[in-house]
């Protein structure tokens, strides 16, 4: 398949600590196609942000491979690695800490060009930066302002402009709107969607907000304790979830209509997420799962299409249960 721009195979990241290895990401296979958005959801500590850092090269994988347009990043060296890195950029979570407060907006957005001088467009860095500001909906005349002179939503636009400077094909968005007001979230999401259409970008969109992910994603991967437990297109995950964890997550999405409140399928999970330094044997979700059988502790369920799950699901007892159904 030639239109796969990003692919991971058996991606693993273990952090060594005194208590043993923390398995933040433990065997993740993903595929991202051109112009597509892949949503990654899961609760705090499931390895979403580590996955994002691995994808953009901020962390080195302990195992597995990351392929950008077929090239294995781990095999690339020197200038070819730099070129491949340019192709995959990131929008960070917190717009208040991801911009250097001592640099002007022009310097921040122009920094990619300082680091990669061969990427500067012919009409010069200054013009390029102003075009980027215009592209993300900011006033190009504000090039000499400092980040503290902007609001949260505007700062996130600056972060997006920086990510776009090197004309990447892939952008990893690590919780890009979770630090923003709800009203601003919609603006930034719409900006990201517009940019995707205009520039043909592919997104890996990491979030814990399920409704935001539903809005923007073509495909969704649900993560739990460093592994993907369910993977499918938007309809499959939201309307026909088969993994108990996905069902529990979806049942926790707030209902906007107060008259329907409390009448929906509610699944309460007991206990906390187990420590990733010492994950449960077999199925990692079994300690909190109402379907767990003794066999779940011995046989690890693989992420695959099952008898009652038309899309890949990592549960021995995968079965469709529409928790989002309206009564």
């Amino acid at each position, binding site marked *: 398949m030639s239109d796969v721009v990003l692919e991971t195979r058996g991606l693993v990241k273990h952090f060594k600590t005194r208590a043993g290895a923390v398995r933040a990401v433990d065997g993740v296979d993903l595929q991202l196609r051109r112009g597509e958005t892949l949503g990654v959801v899961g609760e705090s500590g499931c390895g979403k942000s580590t996955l994002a850092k691995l994808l*953009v*090269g*901020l962390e080195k994988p302990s195992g597995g491979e990351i392929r950008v347009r077929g090239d294995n990043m781990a095999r690339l060296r020197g200038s070819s690695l*730099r070129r491949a*890195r*340019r192709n995959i*950029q*990131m929008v*960070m*979570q*917190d717009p208040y*800490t*991801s*911009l*250097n*407060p*001592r*640099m*002007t907006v*022009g*310097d921040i957005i122009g*920094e*990619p060009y*300082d*680091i*990669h001088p061969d990427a500067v467009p012919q009409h010069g860095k*200054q013009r390029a930066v102003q075009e980027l500001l215009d592209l993300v909906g900011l*006033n190009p*005349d*504000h*090039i*000499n*302002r*400092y980040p*503290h002179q902007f609001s949260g939503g505007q700062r996130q636009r600056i*972060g997006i402009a*920086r990510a776009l400077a*090197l004309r990447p094909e892939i952008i990893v968005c690590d919780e890009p709107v979770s630090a923003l007001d709800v009203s601003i979230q919609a603006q930034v999401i719409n900006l990201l969607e517009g940019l995707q259409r205009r520039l043909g970008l592919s997104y890996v969109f990491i979030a814990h907000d399920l409704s935001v992910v539903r809005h923007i994603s073509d495909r969704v991967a649900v993560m739990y304790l460093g592994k993907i437990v369910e993977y499918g297109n938007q309809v499959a995950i939201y309307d026909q979830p088969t993994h108990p964890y996905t069902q529990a997550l979806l049942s926790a999405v707030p209902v906007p209509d107060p008259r329907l409140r409390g009448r929906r399928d509610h699944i309460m999970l007991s206990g906390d997420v187990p420590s990733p330094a010492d994950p449960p044997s077999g199925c990692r979700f079994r300690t909190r799962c109402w379907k767990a059988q003794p066999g779940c502790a011995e046989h690890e369920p693989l992420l695959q299409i099952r008898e009652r799950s038309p899309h890949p699901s990592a549960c021995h007892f995968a079965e469709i249960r529409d928790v989002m159904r309206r009564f």
Partner: protein
Amino acid sequence: MSDLNAVTTAEAPATDAGKPRGLAGDAWLDLRSRKVFWIAAALVVVVLLMAAWPSLFTSADPGDCLLARKNAGASGGAIFGYDFQGCDVYAKTVYGARDSVVVAIAATLIAGVIGLFVGLAAGYAGGWIDALLSRFIDVMLGVPFLLGAIVLAKRLSSDPESNGVVAVILTLGVLGWTAAARVMRSAVISAKNQDYVAAARMLGAGPGRLMFRHILPNSISPFIVVLTILLGVNIAGEATLSYLGVGLKGDAVSWGLAIAETGPYARTAAAPLVWPSVFLAATVLAFIMLGDAVRDAFDPKLR
């Protein structure tokens, strides 16, 4: 649109679109509106002028002492009177600024260079380099300052011909860098873990760019404040060492020496003790206020 442009130009009057106003320019704009800065700067300028050209302030010679004038009151040019040896207190105080300021600045520079290097290295490298350097700082802090300074200054100023300036500079510099290094180290560690550093690293920035473009500008201001305070501390330190007899000596004239010499006679004539002390305190205060104002100006988060 035109409104927005108007706001931009009003805020940045001195810049074209092509020349972003730098951090220093911004800080200067901010400093100009602070009273404390002007008071402190005026005091510092006066002291520096005194140190560079004492003859601008007095025509008297501090070495021109007549026992006949012992502890005499103010008269003519000697507005502070005369000390127990009959020397002009005003002239001695003015001339004393030079050695005090030279010693303080040179010692602070030495401490600053060592502190900056050690702090940056420990904070940026982390791991065993950090552990080693941090324990070394702990060892240095374990040395009682006065004991260390007396031993070191005595050792360094064994030459009876010298006036002790170099010995005092080295002593204060070598013993004074620890606080600055610690502050630098912790500031570097907190700056290094910021998201914008990760963002630059992701873009492929090398260690030099990370260090000097991102980490250093965001961690230098507490270090500058510590150094400015250290200037004051070193002026006081020189006075202490001189008072104890291991500092400046011979033909040197300094506030510390003057305080040491006139201390025993303070009950019969207070002025020869009070005036150098006032100059000393005012100078220390001026440097500390200046450091504070500069810190505030360089911190965009406080604006």
